[in-house]
Each structure stands twice: as structure tokens, then as C-alpha cells.
């Protein structure tokens, strides 16, 4: 049987790549259109909220005590209610997000790089890769994350460090021009996408089962990716002014297009977009793993691997269906945070309270 162990390093790197996923490209545009030049302040707000939610997740982790998350849910809520909850949760949260991420990748490639390719081809190839890697097990994904992490960081540095000379800090002024309301409004989207999805990290346990170690992993990865987001948002807003950023569809890609040094260090933006490919790959593999495990536990299958291909087929169709045009996409980005918060904030708090109540009742 294939082993399912992840070292702490691998877990951290996987989580960082997961959080860099879809949000990295789309977020500066949305933040700048709502909060204008204060977009970076909403990121700080988001990181604070994330740290608070991590405390809740750690509380749940402490209740778990080494039991896999899906078994714990069934123990907590009773067999049938737990199965129902797990079924709905797995289908409506990780699985849907996986289809959305897949569709994001397809949108990006067909808008910017290869407009004549049908999106189904991209979906099929990516799903093939994701299904295979999840089939091979978590250890394989962890090792792949370890190797590809450095490539991703190198490409990010290559793409975003040369922008520093052209950054104009005057594009960030005046600070707090419209007050704190737009900042909070903008932070909603960022909280939901990708930080609230940290609730899915509960499916992963650390080797010696200590909740503190798990908490450190999640905190480190959130801080790291948060700092990366902050940097990218700052750079995007200072190089292109907030007015320009809010009208671009893929602003972090566009900003790499503007690099031009001595007429030879230029025009390599497609190399930087490999970052996004890799990040979406790890995002999808985590989401696929989580939904497969949840569903396998609902139907009491011995092994989650048998569900991978059917889930892949359904995701292939779902990704083609989720939104028909760009206008629907923009609207659904505004509405998504409230849907995600149900699964990311309300559900964990309820689970934690229930677990606390049960523990007190047991004592």
C-alpha cells in the first residue's frame, strides 16, 4: 500500500503553493477596483482574520486527537447526520472550488496565451495530471511540492523583482482616501479566496500528531503566502496606477509584460506564468484529495482512489459550465465570499463548539 506521510517541510510548501493558486492572478484587479490604492491595507486585514481563524482550526485539531477528520465528523454528529454533512460539504466546497480553479486556468490560458485552443483540451490534460498524482498518494505530491517550490519562487523573483525600479510610491498616495469601508469590502473577497479554505487543511495530520505543529505549519504558510500577495499587490499598484489595474483582467501577468531593461531583459512574461500553472496544479490536487477522501468516507469505501476518475469526469463537465461569460465571472467573484464563509467560518466554529460541548459532557 502506498504510504500517506508528509513531512512538515513538504506540508508547508504544499500549502503555500495551494494558497498562491487562483487568487494570485485575479486578486490585485479586484482589490484595486474596490479599494483603489489602499488594496494592500485590506491584505493586512485579511492576514489578521486568518490568524484568528487558525486559532479556531487549532481548537478543532486538538479535539481530533489523531483521528482522521471525516471519522471525527461522523463521531461528532452521529452516523447519518455526519455522513450527510460530509457528503454535502465535500461536494459543495472542495469539489466546486476545484472546478472553479480548473476553469480559472482555462480562462487564463485561452484569454492571454492561446486563444484558439478549446478549454476542454486544457481541462482534460490538467485533470489527467491531477488524477494521476493524487492516485500516487500524498507523499508523491509532497515530494513534488518540495521540488517545484523552488522553481516557483525563482520564477516569482525573476518576474517581480525587476519591477522595483519602475515602481512609483506616489501611486499609493493618498492613503485612506475613501475611508476604511472600501478596504473592508475588498478584504471580503480575499478572505474567502484562498484563506478560508484553510479549513481543508484539517484533513492533513502531522506525523507526531501534535496540534501545535500543525498550527505552526498553517501559520507559516499563511504568513508566507500573505507576504507574497502583499508584495505582488504593492508592486502591481505602484507600477501601474490603481485606475489601470482595475480595468485589466489579469493584472499580475500584465505587469510582468512591462519589464524592459536595456532592450534585452524583456518579454518573458509567459515564463512567469508557469508559476500559475504549477500553483493551480497543487491547488487542484489538494482539493481533489480532500473531496475524494470525504466521499470515500461517506460511502465507507476502503480506498479513496476508486473515486478519482469519476470525480475527474464530473469536474471536467462542471468546469465548462460554471460561468458562460466574463460578466457572470465578475459577479460571482463578488458573491463567492459569502458562500465560502459558511463553510470556512461558520462550519468550523460550529464544529469546534460542538466538540467542546462533547468534551465537557464526557468529563
Amino acid at each position, binding site marked *: 500500500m502506498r504510504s500517506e506521510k508528509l513531512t512538515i517541510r513538504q506540508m508547508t510548501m504544499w500549502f503555500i503553493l495551494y494558497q498562491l493558486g487562483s487568487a494570485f492572478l485575479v486578486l490585485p484587479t479586484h482589490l484595486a477596483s474596490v479599494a483603489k490604492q489602499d488594496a494592500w491595507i485590506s491584505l493586512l486585514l485579511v492576514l489578521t482574520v486568518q490568524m484568528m481563524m487558525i486559532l479556531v482550526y487549532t481548537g478543532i485539531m486538538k479535539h481530533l486527537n489523531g483521528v482522521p477528520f471525516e471519522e471525527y465528523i461522523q463521531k461528532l454528529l452521529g452516523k447519518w447526520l455526519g455522513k450527510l454533512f460530509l457528503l454535502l460539504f465535500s461536494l459543495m466546497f472542495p469539489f466546486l472550488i476545484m472546478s472553479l480553479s480548473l476553469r480559472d486556468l482555462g480562462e487564463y490560458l485561452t*484569454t492571454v496565451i*492561446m486563444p484558439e485552443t478549446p478549454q476542454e483540451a486544457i481541462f482534460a490534460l490538467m485533470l489527467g495530471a491531477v488524477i494521476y498524482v493524487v492516485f500516487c498518494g500524498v507523499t508523491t505530491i509532497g515530494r513534488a511540492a518540495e521540488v517545484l517550490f523552488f522553481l516557483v519562487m525563482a520564477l516569482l523573483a525573476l518576474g517581480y523583482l525587476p519591477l522595483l525600479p519602475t515602481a512609483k510610491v506616489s501611486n499609493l498616495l*493618498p492613503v485612506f482616501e475613501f475611508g476604511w469601508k472600501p478596504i473592508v469590502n475588498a478584504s471580503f473577497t480575499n478572505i474567502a479566496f484562498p484563506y478560508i479554505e484553510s479549513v481543508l487543511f484539517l484533513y492533513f495530520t502531522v506525523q507526531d500528531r501534535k496540534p501545535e505543529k500543525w498550527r505552526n505549519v498553517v501559520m507559516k504558510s499563511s504568513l508566507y503566502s500573505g507576504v507574497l500577495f502583499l508584495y505582488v499587490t504593492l508592486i502591481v499598484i505602484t507600477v*501601474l*496606477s490603481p*485606475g*489601470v489595474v482595475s480595468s485589466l483582467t489579469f493584472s499580475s501577468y500584465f505587469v510582468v509584460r*512591462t519589464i524592459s531593461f536595456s532592450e534585452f531583459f524583456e518579454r518573458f512574461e509567459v515564463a512567469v506564468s508557469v508559476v500559475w500553472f504549477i500553483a493551480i496544479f497543487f491547488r487542484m490536487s489538494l482539493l481533489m484529495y480532500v473531496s475524494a477522501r470525504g466521499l470515500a468516507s461517506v460511502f465507507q469505501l476502503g480506498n479513496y482512489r476508486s473515486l478519482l476518475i469519476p470525480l475527474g469526469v464530473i469536474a471536467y463537465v462542471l468546469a465548462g459550465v460554471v460561468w458562460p461569460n466574463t460578466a457572470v465571472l465578475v459577479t460571482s467573484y463578488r458573491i463567492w465570499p459569502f458562500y465560502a464563509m459558511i463553510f470556512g467560518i461558520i462550519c468550523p466554529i460550529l464544529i469546534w463548539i460542538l466538540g467542546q460541548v462533547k468534551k465537557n459532557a464526557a468529563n
Partner: protein
Amino acid sequence: MNVLTRIGAVIMAMIMLVMLLTGCWNRRELNAISVVLAMGIDWVDKQYQISVQVSDPSQMSINRSVGERSPAIVFTERAPTIFEALRKITTKASRRMYLSHMRIVILDEEVAKRGIRNPLDFLFRDHEVRPDFHMVVARGCSAKEILSFVTPMEVLPAMDLYKSLKVSERAWAPTSAVNVVDMMQKSTKDGIEPVLTGITLVGNRKKGMKMDNIKQPRSLAEYNYTGIGVMLDDRIVGWLNESDSKGYSFITNNVHSTVGHVACPDSKGNFVVEVYNSKVKITPSIRNGKPFVSVELRSEANIGEYHCQADLTEIQVFSQLQQAAREEQKKVLENSIIHVQKRFGADIFGFGEYFHMKYPGQWQAWKKIWPDVFQNELKFEVIVKSELRKTGKITNSVH
């Protein structure tokens, strides 16, 4: 047996991967695309006339026969919109136009007067176009004529235009190379208006489009980057002369190095000041509810030519010359701001943005009517703190 099947499976996987990685769906073979180097947009007969200059790859090699075929080819087409015109060009050209390496876009004066937002919408929206080309406006001629022009220095005319623009921007202040990213930023901000450089053709144009242009040392016609065009919103409202353009470049911190003459304080000749370092600090303030801007110029310069009589090694003469240079710079800047203010009312210097950054509350009231406020109510003062440093290889003129 197992090892053999494994090797067979690995080889099969590798073959499949190679087949999948060729990216066949969106393939563009190199001999099916033409790399567009420059694009010209004209307005003719109520339609856009697009001219593209592409390079002929066979003429770019070293063993080519000079004078047989032109290294650059120009295609033109007319259509109500630019995207249509570009696709229509395929009815005349054997390849599809590839816009990623475009260096310069030339707009007609008609197009600039009607508004550049519509032509530029395509250039911003298309996925092939990169935001690193420059834009100029053709004065007194059409963009098509400029693209069809034969240039003496470079093989490809578009590269000649592009390089000349870049070199001129660094060496001569009245030229300002307008990058697309700057144009986008200035269009979205309320407090600053974009500008465009102008280009014109002097000499015998008809002969300039033939190879005869470069067959003798003196070209029969040549191009010339002239002043800076002031835009209000997205339309050209007027042109600045050389002195005002220089003032504009100084105030917007675009001067890398420039040269200007100053009258001698004591005699009739001129001396030339070469500025190599220039920084302008703009401080906005509000006096009596009206906007007030203080422009402080600090520059360092050398003496490039000296036709005066006084002795350059004396400290007093030097400070007299420095004072004369400062007066001259102050006059240039003041005239520039006054002319733009009174004639056009377009804030190309970006004073509005400084008010936006420092007085956001007041800016909300001024935002919509800033051109008016700029034209009628803005007062300014110019403080020049330049220094003259060196005199070159010789101190006094040799006589």
C-alpha cells in the same frame, strides 16, 4: 518480462508526452506570420486606415543584394474599426500580422483630434500586443507616408524611428517618448493629462519614399521629431513649441541630458549650458482657497560652448554665468506653464495629482472641474537652484 513491459510503458508515456507538448492547437508557424514593427492609424473617408510595416526576413540577412528588394513592406487597409482592418490585410498579404513586437504606433493628426481612446482600445485589449510600444502623432503628413519612408541609418525604417525617439529623449529635452503604460496611467488619472510627441517629414516626400533617398549622402527627405502635443481628455488640442516642450520635460522630470544656449551677461554672444542632472520638486499648497504650486528646479550643468569675452577662471564671472543660466531656465519654465495654462487649460504637468495626494478632501471638489481650475485659478512660482560645474577640456576659449 516485467522489466521489458516497464521500459515499454515508459517509452510509450514519453512518446505521448512529446506528442501532447507540441501545442498544435494554437500553432503559428514562423513562416505564416509577419512580424509587425510599426503601425500607422489614419482617418480617411470616415474610416480607419491602418498601415503596418513588416520586415522582409529574406532581406535581413548579410548576404542580401542591396537595392533589389526593400527590407520593409507596408500594407494598408481601410475598415470601420482597427481589428477589422488588420484582419482584412490578409487579403493582400500572404501572412498573418503578428503584433507582439510592435515598436511604434503612429497616429494621424485627424485621429488624434477625434480622440485616441477608440483606436487604443484594440491595442490594449488584444492579447498579442505588449504594452511597450511608443506612440507619436504625424503632423502635416499621414501615418502611411511616414511608414513608407526610407530612412538612411537603419535598414528597417521602424527601428530607425524607434531608436531615434529613444536617443532623442535622452539627449534633447523637447522630445518626450510616450510609453503606452504611461499613457494608460495618465488617461485614468484625473489630475494629469497625457501628451504625445509629433513627427513630421521635411523635404521632398515623394522622393523620400524611394530608395533614391539613401543613394547619396544627403537624403532628399527626412523625418523630424517636433514638439509635444497637448491632450485634453483624449484629444489633441494644440502643440507646444521647442522652448515650451523643454519646460514640460524639465517639470515632469524627463530630462536626462539636454543642451540650451544662454545670452552672455556682458557681451553679445551666447554660451551653451549642458544639463546632465535635473530634478524638479513640486510642492502644492492652498492659498485663499485657490491652488498654488511651487516648482523648485535643481539641476547640474556644464558649459558646453563659450562665445563670450569674460574670463572663465574668475569666480565672479562664473557666478554671473550661473545667474544668467538660472534666469534663462526660470523663464523657460514659467513661459511653458503660462502658455499651457492660458492656451490649452490642460494640466499636462500633473499638478492635479500632487493636490490629489496632499489634499484629498479638497481634491474631491476640484476633480471634475480641474481643467477649469488649472486654467483660471492656479498660481505658481518657479524657483531655480541650478549649479554650473565644469567647463570641459579647456577653460577659456583659445585665442
